[in-house]
């Protein structure tokens, strides 16, 4: 670890927080109906889109109507993407003549991108046409992020609502999040990336005759337009197999810093938007402090482990220094470690180094962050998880101090607790059950690249990544078979939609409740003491459910490594 590297990591996180606050305020103004100076520009444009889609902007929706519409349009878009993958061989914009995807892989890929996961059982440069990269992948990278954000916004309206049924209009929210946030940010960021060396072309691959007289086929394509929304939308699905480790996706230290900031921007902003919706900025500040602390600790655990290097190589071959296996020189250990922490905290899933080759405890942190799934979390989905754990924390602390649990002035009753518990328990269930099943099958074992406990980590990481809608991988796992494509596809869908459904049901019942004014008997949630309890709850719940699996995965591997070197 160096001082400069450490400062570099801290500066990135500080910039994310600093930009998140004004953006969070902006999102509040867009979605709370407070007027904005930009209305004059956007209103006529949006009216045009409403008319084209056939939307009546004045309709107010109940939680059921809002949720039904959200699910329906997600389903239609998923089918659309599936068809594009199946037909890409016959569709235009395919200069490298890529054939159709097999059905199971097409299902997995469609499920992966509609759920904002971006798990990739294919290699982009070989398995997707330019058209698929644009009209299926890039497209869903916008709409899946938008789906997460509007779900979070709808929930926030339920908290601030007073005895009402309405959560707003899904279509209006869904269109606005594109026009007022995602499209402008993506256009600017994509052009910046082109300027720094990310290709953006419809010309097919380039054949080069190298300096040593060999022939090298260089894949390229419309990369920058995908890369921008890949990060802003906390998607993470790369254009190329190597994702952001590929120099065309992430050509310099500077671009990787920008990509990290882009990942953190919207999830961080939404925490501030939440504070504005409940009229309590201190609540958002308390969450910022604790979540940032968890993020910083995680980033430095990775950084420490990676800079210490691999003792096995030092012992066997005399190679000392940073673990550079799977890393790029332009990022070095600090930016690779920061990226691994940020991509899993904000559940993006992009990688600029190969996580499978991280040191055991370096790979432990990304897994842990995905198991938490709320260290800011993905666009919208992260805030929903934070709110779910806030409800559970209020309930637990209410039990401890003997007060009626209430949050943001609304009483928490049996129904809300049951639903929050469902949303919470789905996550470990859909990770641990399929991991266990896969590891008991012959097929499952044949998918592993690495032997021993590291192989177990590969499968555990895969289902954790799917359930958390992250998409990063211990990429040694060869998961492109029908069994894994289907199970992982279902895990991604359950991980996404069961918790969204449960949270909407909570939103429905919260919206109807009267707001109780705070009194001296109210358990305040905007204090640092409560923030500490909140972290303790999600760490303990996370640790208890996942600890056995982590113990025989990365922790066990670390102990084995020490044992083998006679420490």
């Amino acid at each position: 670890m160096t001082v400069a590297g450490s400062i570099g990591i801290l500066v990135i996180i500080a910039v994310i927080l600093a930009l998140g606050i004004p953006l969070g305020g902006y999102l509040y103004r867009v979605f709370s109906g407070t007027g904005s100076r930009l209305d004059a520009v956007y209103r006529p444009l949006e009216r045009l889109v409403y008319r084209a889609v056939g939307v009546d902007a004045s309709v107010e929706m109940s939680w059921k109507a809002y949720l039904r519409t959200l699910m329906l349009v997600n389903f239609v878009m998923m089918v659309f993407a599936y068809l594009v993958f199946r037909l890409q061989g016959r569709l235009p914009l395919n200069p490298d003549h890529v054939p159709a995807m097999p059905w199971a892989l097409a299902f997995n890929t469609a499920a992966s991108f509609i759920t904002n996961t971006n798990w990739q059982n294919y290699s982009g440069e070989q398995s997707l046409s330019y058209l698929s990269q644009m009209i299926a992948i890039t497209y869903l990278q916008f709409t899946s992020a938008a789906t997460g954000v509007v779900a979070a916004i709808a929930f926030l309206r339920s908290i601030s609502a007073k005895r009402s049924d309405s959560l707003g209009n899904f279509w209006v929210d869904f269109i606005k999040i594109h026009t007022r946030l995602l499209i402008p940010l993506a256009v600017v960021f994509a052009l910046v990336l082109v300027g720094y060396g990310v290709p953006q072309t419809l010309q097919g691959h380039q054949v080069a005759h190298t300096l040593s007289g060999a022939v090298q086929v260089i894949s390229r394509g419309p990369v920058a337009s995908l890369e921008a929304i890949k990060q802003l939308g906390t998607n993470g699905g790369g254009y190329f197999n190597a994702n952001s480790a590929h120099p065309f996706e992430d050509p310099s230290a500077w671009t990787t810093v920008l990509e990290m900031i882009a990942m953190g921007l919207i999830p961080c902003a939404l925490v501030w938007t939440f504070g504005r919706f409940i009229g309590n900025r201190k609540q958002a500040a308390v969450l910022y402090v604790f979540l940032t602390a968890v993020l910083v600790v995680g980033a430095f655990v990775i950084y420490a482990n990676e800079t210490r290097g691999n003792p096995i190589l030092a012992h066997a071959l005399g190679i000392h220094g940073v673990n550079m296996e799977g890393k790029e020189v332009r990022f070095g250990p600090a930016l690779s470690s920061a990226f691994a922490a940020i991509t899993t905290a904000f559940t993006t899933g992009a990688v600029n180094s190969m996580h499978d080759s991280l040191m055991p405890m370096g790979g432990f942190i990304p897994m842990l962050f995905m198991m938490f799934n709320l260290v800011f979390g993905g666009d919208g989905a992260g805030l929903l998880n934070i709110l779910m754990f806030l409800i559970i924390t209020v309930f637990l602390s209410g039990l401890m101090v003997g007060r009626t649990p209430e949050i943001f002035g609304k009483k928490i009753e049996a129904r809300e607790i049951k639903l929050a518990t469902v949303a919470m328990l789905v996550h470990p269930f859909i990770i641990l059950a399929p991991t266990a099943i896969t590891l008991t099958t012959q097929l499952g074992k044949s998918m592993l690249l690495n032997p021993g406990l590291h192989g177990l980590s590969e499968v555990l990481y895969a289902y954790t990544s799917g359930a958390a809608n992250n998409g990063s991988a211990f990429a040694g796992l060869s998961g492109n078979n029908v069994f894994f494509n289907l199970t992982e596809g279902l895990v991604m869908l359950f991980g996404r939609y069961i918790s969204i459904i449960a949270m909407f049901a909570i939103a429905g019942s919260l919206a109807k409740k009267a707001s109780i004014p705070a009194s001296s008997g109210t358990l305040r949630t905007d204090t640092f003491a409560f923030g500490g309890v909140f972290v303790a709850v999600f760490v303990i719940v996370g640790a208890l459910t996942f600890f056995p699996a982590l113990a025989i995965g990365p922790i066990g591997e670390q102990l084995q490594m020490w044992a083998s070197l006679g420490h």
Partner: protein
Amino acid sequence: MVNFWRSIRFTMIFAILLGLIYPLVITGIGELLFPYQAQGSMVKVRGQVVGSMLIAQPVTNPGLFHPRPSAVNYAANGSGGSNLGPTNPALVKEVRNNLQTVLQQNPGVSPSQVPPDMVESSGSGLDPDISVQDALLQIPRIARATGLSQAYLQGLVRQYEQHPTLGIWGTPMVNVMQLNLVIERRLGKG
């Protein structure tokens, strides 16, 4: 049912907007403002594309700088790392092979001098950069093969060394293609 038709209309309209118009607009503006970058930073020597500034290529010539080891043999249409875990015996084997190659090609170098990036495979398999230490260790070999002086080559590495951005982001390094182009030009081949 109304919402079903709306969903289909939304899907189609936004697929065209976000999946075609957006990338095509970026392509148009990108080609206009940054044609070199937009096409992949391709390098031409005497009118012929010899590679990309950003993509490592296999170098066999002892008179040129060699890039880092690649788990995919520098396939620029099939990027990737080794994905070998830190405790996997195959990793030790891979690094041992890479180390042997380095020691064989650069006599006089001892394993303790070798920086990890010189013998451990990159994440993309296409890492265009090497650490300064890696470059310096290759200089005696290049000098022998080309007849260029070691002092000249060391000066070259110093001249093209890229420093961390703002002093905090990244590591000191050199771009292999950049150095090799200068050597080729100097030798009258470029």
